[in-house]
């Protein structure tokens, strides 16, 4: 579904991604972990070309992401994305946040889009907030709206960029629960997170990155119990100690 082959990315002199090789299958849940600045978010943002790669090959569902001829908007409609800071549109009600892209990008009639939106709001457990503005919601609720907004496009892939990092600790669970449900339903997911509990429970594979490279890829049980690489062991020792 997503294939990285020898992907390199530079920001000026800074070499952010180095020789990335990664194949993610349909329905797979891949959790990307690693220290700050290791390139996790950049890796994720390359998938829908929020960041352009410098060299190498990157395809999503067989479509070349880097090709100038690729209709990037069409490709992006099939890739949902959830951000660390939610990025809900503050001037629009929750329901309009969710229907905007289906109506404008897919041409779904408004009433039908609203119906779909309500269904997804129900799914993420906040059906009663449809007519609220984002600023009236808690962080956890906002992030669930953001997930509903991404799902309303009926994407084939969902990208999560540290979805719980900006949340109060007591709100983390409600967002992770929604993500676990999605994972169980067979959504293809790439999740950058520091939530090791989620990785352990929901991931099919864990990707550990350090300094722009993929250091280790392993099923969660193996990764958490007997990591092969020294750097991964050190990382786990630090994050799992508390």
């Amino acid at each position, binding site marked *: 579904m997503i294939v990285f082959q020898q992907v390199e990315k530079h920001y000026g002199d800074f070499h952010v991604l180095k020789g990335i090789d990664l194949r993610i299958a349909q329905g797979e849940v891949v959790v990307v972990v690693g220290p700050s600045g290791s390139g996790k978010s950049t890796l994720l943002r390359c998938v829908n070309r929020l960041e352009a790669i410098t060299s190498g090959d990157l395809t999503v569902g067989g479509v070349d992401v880097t090709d100038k001829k690729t209709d990037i*908007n069409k490709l992006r409609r099939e890739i949902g994305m959830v951000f660390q800071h939610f990025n809900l*549109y503050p*001037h629009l009600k929750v329901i309009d946040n969710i229907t*905007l892209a289906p109506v*404008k*990008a897919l041409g779904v009639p408004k009433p039908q889009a609203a119906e779909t939106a309500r269904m997804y709001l129900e799914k993420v457990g906040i059906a009663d907030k449809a007519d609220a*503005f984002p600023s009236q919601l808690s962080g956890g609720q906002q992030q669930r709206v953001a997930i509903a907004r991404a799902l309303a496009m009926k994407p084939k892939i969902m990208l999560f960029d540290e979805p719980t990092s900006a949340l109060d600790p007591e709100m983390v669970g409600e967002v992770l629960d929604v993500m676990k449900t999605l994972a169980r339903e067979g959504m293809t997911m790439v999740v950058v997170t520091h939530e090791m509990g989620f990785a352990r429970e929901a991931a099919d594979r864990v990707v550990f990155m350090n300094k722009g490279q993929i250091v280790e890829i392993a099923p969660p049980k193996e990764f958490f119990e007997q990591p092969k690489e020294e750097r991964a062991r050190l990382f786990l020792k630090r994050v799992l100690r508390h």
Partner: protein
Amino acid sequence: MPDVSIFTDHFGIYMKGFGNTIWASVIALLGSFALGTIIAVFRISSVKPLRWIGTGYVEFVRNIPLLLVVFVFYYGLPSLGVTLSGFVCGTVGLMVYTASFVAEAIRAGIMSVPSGQSEAARASGLTYMQTMRHVVLPQAIRIVIPPLSNQFINLVKNSSVLSVFAGFDLMYYGDQVAGKTYATFDTYIFVAALYLVLTLPLSFAALKLERKLAKNG
């Protein structure tokens, strides 16, 4: 105390000018808002030629006097075989000139919208224009209202440039009345009062709009 009879005796002339000033202002205001928005979007576009056009426009137009901008239309176009009236040249010149300031105000507003907003919109498959139209500009406009209302108040006052080109605006007829009555000071007091009739409500409306939008934050 100014001589009120100057106003009452020439009421029709004053009103003719007043009407034309309103017309010129409304047309230039709407035009400069539309043009300025387009130029602002050009200026921050990722397409280099568009950015050059936008930047070139703003830096060129806003750095020459308004009077000279209107000169281009009034004296420049006839050499290309197009002759337009003073009113049209003045209004178009005013529009073109104000658009450069409007563009800068709108650009600053757009830049103040967090980048995550357009990222979220683009990631959902909306085009650049749709993102601007539905996500970025509606948020930018709140920030833009105070500087924009300044520009529009300036525009109303700057419309007096029409008088130089026989544009039949308020200032033009003011000159006529002053020339006839020799009561220069009294004549222009009423001209000033009529400009205030236009600009003060504009100021208040901007303030009100600002408050209203702030409430729906």
